[in-house]
């Protein structure tokens, strides 16, 4: 409980820090009514928090249903599908500021449907091994098509499409934030409601069945909800790696395995990590900016190594 509260405090501090720092200096007297703070830093920090949180929860839930510590929101082919959607939108010069995110979202959903279908190959149930294999295969296929499109396209836009894929929160605005806020509650509620059966599943498939969990329907629900979270994350911010892989493990090390605690903690932890990583991405090489996915990897991997060491020694 104490640690949970600590996590909330850290999350709020991270948000405050992200709004306070930036590549330019905003003097304190002007802070409250500076358009830089109101229109740029604030929506960006909040969007980063929601995206990081969504990725953290999606990662924790997927690791639980496939019972594999390597599972991550992008392992199951969604990044490939979203990337293909985005690149096609840029390649065919679809108009409007929402064209690329919508196409990425559609691509992620298409990949999800395909992987889901492959996952059902063994019969009526989603089979974790088939899910992972299907995810890797669909991801590789989408990646190949993306590379084909990019290699046939104009060099400048190609570079930009790739940069977009590397992930970044520079598209953040109050509009994007409103869309994400309206969208997130449903998949999040679905996952939080599955916390108890996910605990049972952690005991093993057979024991979970004996204890009354409907494993087949649980897997389907959780897979779809986690994919919906990932799809919106990739649509607004590109492919941001490592958050969904590392945060759930870190939270398990800190707060234990119970999903009723783990899922909200993964949300807070993921949000905190991404907000801090984005602050670093904006500040470290200012006036230039790093793709945030690079920072999450650079920061996340050493932290992860430390946590795993603590986890295994205690």
């Amino acid at each position, binding site marked *: 409980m104490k640690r949970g509260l600590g996590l909330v405090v850290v999350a709020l501090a991270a948000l405050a820090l992200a709004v306070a720092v*930036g*590549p*330019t200096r905003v003097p304190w007297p002007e802070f409250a009514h500076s*358009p*830089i703070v109101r*229109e*740029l*830093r604030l*929506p960006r920090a909040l969007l980063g928090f929601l995206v990081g949180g969504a990725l953290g929860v999606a990662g924790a839930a997927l690791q639980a249903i496939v019972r594999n510590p390597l599972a991550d929101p992008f392992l199951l082919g969604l990044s490939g599908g979203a990337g293909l959607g985005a690149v096609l939108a*840029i*390649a065919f*010069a679809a*108009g*409007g*500021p929402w064209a*690329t995110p919508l196409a990425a979202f559609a691509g992620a959903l298409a990949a999800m449907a395909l992987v889901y279908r492959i996952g059902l190959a063994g019969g009526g149930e989603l089979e974790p091994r088939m899910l992972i294999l299907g995810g890797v295969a669909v991801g590789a296929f989408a990646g190949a098509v993306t590379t084909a*499109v990019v290699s*046939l*396209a*104009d*060099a*400048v*836009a*190609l570079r*930009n*499409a790739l*940069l*977009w894929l590397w992930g*970044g929160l*520079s*598209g*953040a*605005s*109050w*509009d994007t934030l409103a869309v994400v806020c309206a969208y997130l509650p449903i998949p999040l509620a679905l996952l939080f409601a599955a916390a108890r059966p996910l605990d049972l599943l952690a005991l093993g498939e057979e024991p979970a069945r004996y204890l009354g969990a409907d494993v087949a329907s649980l897997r389907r629900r959780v897979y779809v909800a986690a994919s919906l979270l990932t799809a919106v994350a990739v649509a607004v911010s590109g492919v941001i790696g490592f958050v969904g892989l590392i945060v759930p493990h870190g939270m398990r090390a800190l707060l234990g395995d119970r999903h009723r605690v783990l899922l909200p903690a993964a949300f807070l932890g993921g949000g905190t990590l991404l907000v801090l990583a984005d602050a670093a991405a*904006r500040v470290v090489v*200012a*006036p*230039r*900016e790093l*793709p945030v996915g690079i920072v999450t990897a650079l920061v996340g991997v050493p932290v992860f190594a430390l946590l795993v060491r603590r986890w295994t020694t205690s």
Partner: protein
Amino acid sequence: MALRIARRRSPISAPTGVGIFAMRRLAHRTHLVRVVTLCVAATRTAPAQGQPGLAVTDDAGRPVVLAAPARRIVSLSPAITELLFALGAGERVVGRTTWCDYPPAARAVPSVGDGLNPDLEAILSRRPDLVVLYHSPLNVGAATHLASLGVAAILLRQDRLEDLRRDASILGRLTARAAAGDSLAVSISEALRPMPDLGVRVAILAWENPPTVIGGASYLDELATLAGGHNVFHDLRTPAAVVSLETLAARDPDALVVLADSGAAKPPQFEREPSWRVIRAVRTGKVLVLAGTLFGRPSPRAPVAISDFHRLLAGVR
């Protein structure tokens, strides 16, 4: 900015498999002959063969020697294609890249595909006696390969107007149009004299998400300066860099310059977005659109580009 799907290798008469092998062998043999001739020539006095204009060193430091003025040229860069046409050597261009769209007559030349990592087979099928490549690490391998097949290949830098001035005189000599090359070089030098300073500070946007601006190492930065403006990202030492909107807002340019793709110069879409309206130039509607083919590459049309740019900047003040 639109991203176009490249049309794949348009109307080249594809050589038959037998044809290409025979051609390579033949090319190899002529190469040997040429090496022998060169060795003989070298024992006498350099430069070789009484045609001093036909031996040059390219930007990669490779010696390039022609036996006779180039008659069949494959140009692997839009800037070079423009330059060759401006030299009056347009009818000798027998191959171009997909992106060579100026002058209109250039479009009638068969395309050999991309200018970076070019398709050697498509180039050889045009039977060139000179291939001009953009000086990039991606092209050094292709140039060496072409040279080993006995086809003269020259790597030329085309990043600044100064490079183009040099390219004009080099290509003038290699096509035996030295006078035209030198006068073109002179007119480019004249363009290099800056227009009166307008004191207008600009940011040049290459892409909007993530916001990517033109830095000091780009040709566009040079154009802006020559046109009497100041690039607020001149201090960035790369051709282009991703920056945050916050930085753009804080550097507070008087105008935002957007490079439109060739042809359809549709107005940028961000003008109504609240996050972009933090930038004063966007709020006040000072967004200038430049057409891509005239401004996107150093070309003999630079004087036109500079005076057009100057006029646009003067309108901002």
